[in-house]
C-alpha cells in the first residue's frame, strides 16, 4: 500500500485524516458562526488540508519552525494548537494564543510551537523564514523552517528576495506555495506568467517541485525529501502544491462573481479530504465504528471549544496600550 511504501503506519494515516477532518470541521463551524452573526470574519483552509497535513507531517514538530499563512489551519493544529485556540481567536478573546484577540482569525503565531506571528500583508513571512533559518544556522541549532503562501503572493517582491537569500546561504527552508488557482478573483493566467510556480526554483539554485496538493501522500513524500535535504545542509526547496479553494476567498467574498458553481462542484470531487477517506475505506484501515467515533470526537471537541470561547473573557480595554514597547 502507498502509505506503507512511504513508511507511514495505519495509525499515522488515521491521524492524518483526523487532522484534516478536524480542520475542515472547525472551518465549517466558523462559517456557521459567521452567518449567525457571532463572529465577524472567516478565512478558510477548505480544500487545502491535504497539502497542509502532508507538509506538517514531514516536519519535526518538536523542533522545526513554521512561518505559515492564513489558510494553514491544519498545519498549526498538527503543530499543537487546538480547536479551542481557533475559537478563542475567532471570538477575539483574551485567551487567543495568537494575539489575545488583537488580530483576525487565522493570523497564526504561537511561541509554544515555534509558529512565528504573521500579519495580513501577504508574503512578508517568507523573508522571516529565511531570517529564522539563518539564525538557526549560525547558532548551530539548525531547525528546518517551513513557510507557505498562496500562488498569488508568490509574485510579491519579498518572495523573490527570500528565495534568493535562502538559496545563496543554502538555508534549511522549505518554501511551500499553495496554488489554489485564484488570488481572490484573479485567475492563474492573470497572476502568473508561467502558470507554474515551481519553474522558478531553478532561478534560485534550488529544486522546484510541483505536486498534487489534494494527495496527502504525494505532498508528504516530496516534503519529506525537501526536509531531509534541508536537514543535511543542502539548502532550500520550492514546492508548489496545486489544489483548489472550496470556499469563497473569505466571509466577505462572493466567489460566484468570478467562477461558476460547476467549477467549484468539479473541484469538490477532487477534494483531498474526500480522496483520503476513500483510500482509508478501500484499504479498510478503519471500521465504521472507529470512523464514527472519530467524527463524534471531533464534533464534541469543536462544540466544547465554541462553548468555551463564547464564554471566555474579552481582553480588558485598558490593555489597549499594552505591548507597544517592552516596558
Amino acid at each position: 500500500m502507498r502509505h506503507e511504501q512511504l513508511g507511514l503506519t495505519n495509525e499515522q494515516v488515521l491521524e492524518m485524516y483526523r487532522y484534516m477532518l478536524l480542520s475542515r470541521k472547525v472551518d465549517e463551524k466558523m462559517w456557521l458562526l459567521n452567518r449567525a452573526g457571532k463572529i465577524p470574519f472567516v478565512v478558510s483552509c477548505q480544500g487545502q488540508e491535504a497539502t497542509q497535513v502532508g507538509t506538517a507531517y514531514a516536519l519535526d514538530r518538536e523542533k522545526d519552525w513554521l512561518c505559515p499563512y492564513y489558510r494553514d489551519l491544519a498545519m498549526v493544529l498538527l503543530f499543537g494548537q487546538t480547536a479551542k485556540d481557533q475559537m478563542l481567536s475567532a471570538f477575539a478573546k483574551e485567551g487567543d494564543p495568537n494575539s489575545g484577540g488583537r488580530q483576525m482569525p487565522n493570523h497564526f503565531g504561537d511561541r509554544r510551537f515555534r509558529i512565528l506571528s504573521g500579519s495580513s500583508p501577504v508574503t512578508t513571512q517568507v523573508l522571516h523564514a529565511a531570517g529564522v533559518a539563518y539564525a538557526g544556522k549560525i547558532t548551530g541549532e539548525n531547525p528546518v523552517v517551513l513557510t507557505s503562501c498562496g500562488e498569488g503572493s508568490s509574485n510579491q517582491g519579498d518572495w523573490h528576495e527570500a528565495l534568493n537569500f535562502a538559496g545563496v546561504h543554502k538555508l534549511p527552508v522549505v518554501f511551500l506555495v499553495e496554488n489554489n488557482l485564484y488570488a481572490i478573483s484573479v485567475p492563474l493566467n492573470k497572476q502568473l506568467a508561467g502558470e507554474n510556480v515551481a519553474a522558478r526554483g531553478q532561478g534560485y539554485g534550488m529544486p522546484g517541485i510541483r505536486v498534487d496538493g489534494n494527495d496527502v501522500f504525494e505532498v508528504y513524500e516530496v516534503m519529506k525529501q525537501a526536509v531531509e535535504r534541508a536537514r543535511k545542509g543542502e539548502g532550500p526547496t520550492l514546492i508548489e502544491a496545486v489544489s483548489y479553494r472550496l470556499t469563497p476567498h473569505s466571509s466577505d467574498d462572493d466567489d460566484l462573481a468570478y467562477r461558476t458553481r460547476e467549477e467549484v462542484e468539479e473541484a469538490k470531487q477532487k477534494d483531498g479530504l474526500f480522496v483520503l477517506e476513500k483510500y482509508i475505506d478501500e484499504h479498510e484501515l478503519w471500521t465504521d465504528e472507529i470512523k464514527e467515533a472519530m467524527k463524534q470526537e471531533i464534533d464534541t471537541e469543536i462544540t466544547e471549544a465554541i462553548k468555551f470561547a463564547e464564554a471566555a473573557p474579552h481582553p480588558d480595554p485598558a490593555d489597549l496600550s499594552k505591548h507597544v514597547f517592552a516596558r
Partner: protein
Amino acid sequence: MPVISYIDAITEAMREEMGRDKRVFVLGEDVGVRGGVFRATNGLIELYGEDRVLDTPLTESAIVGVGVGAAAYGLRPIAEIQFADFIMPAINQIISEASKMRYRSNGTWECPMVIRAPYGGGIHGALYHSQSVEALFTGVPGLKIVAPSTPYDVKGLLLSSIRDNDPVLFFEHKKLYRFIKDEVPETEYTIPIGKADVKREGSDVTVITYGLMVHYTLEAAKKLAEEGVDVHVLDLRTLIPLDKGAVLEATKKTGKVLIVHEDNKTSGFGAEVAAVIAEEAFFDLDAPVGRLCSPDVPSMPYNSKLEKAFMLNPEKIAVAIRELAEL
C-alpha cells in the same frame, strides 16, 4: 439631484471620466470582473474592457511602478490599493519615483496618476485593514493628498485628481463607503484640490478635521449646540497642499482649536496643522491647540471592545470640545 452613497460617487467619477478621456485607465487587484473588493470599480470592465480595467497580479509595487511608466508614456492611471495598509510595498515607487519624477527631470517628465486607497477603521478590520496611513506621505513634497468626507466632495475631488498633472494619493474612508448618502449632481463638476470646506459655522470652538471624523464631529456639534456650545467645523478635504488660509481663518473665528483625526496622535497630520497655527496664528489663539486622536498604538485591534476603545466617537469628541470651550 440623485442621492447616492460615497462609494457610488467614486464609481461614477471614474466611469464618467473614463468615458470622457481615453487616457484614463484603472489597475489593481480584483478591480476587473470582481469590480473591486469594495465594488468601487463595479461595472467598469463591462464598459471599458479588460485593457482599461486591469486586474493586476498581487503586487503593489508593480501596480504603482507600472502606473508610473504608463503615466510617463502619457496615460492617466488610477491605481487601486486594495486596503491602504497594503500600500507599504509600493512606498518606494511612490516616494522615490512618482513624487520626484517632475522635479528630478527638471520638469521634462511627469507623473499624472491617482492612487486610490481605502483607509480607516471601525469595521472589524483589525490591525491591517484599519490603518490611517496618510501621515506617511504628507511630508513628501511632490505628492498631493486628498481625503474627502462626503459623496459630493469625493466625486468632485476624484475628478480633479484624475485631471491633475501630478501624482495624487486619494484616501477613501472605507467606513464612509456605505455609511452616508448625499445629493450628487449628475452633471459634470469638480472641486479644486487644496480647498478646505466649512462644514458647520460656529463661534465658540473650532474643530479642524477630515474623513470619517467630520461626521462624528458634526454629530458632537449638534449635541453641544443643545448645551449652548457653538462649534465651527472645518473639513480639510485636501491634506496636501494644506489650505492654510482656511486653517488660519477658522482659528481666528473662535480662538480655540481642536484638531481631530482617527490616525494616532504622534506625528499624525494634526501635528502639522497645529504647528502651522502655532507659528502663523499664535496671536489669534485664546487657548492651547488641542489634538484629539487615536492612541499611539500600532493599529486598532480586532476585538470589538478594543476597537471601540481605540476609535474616536462623537461622545469622545464632545468631551474634548466641551473642555476646550470651558477653558
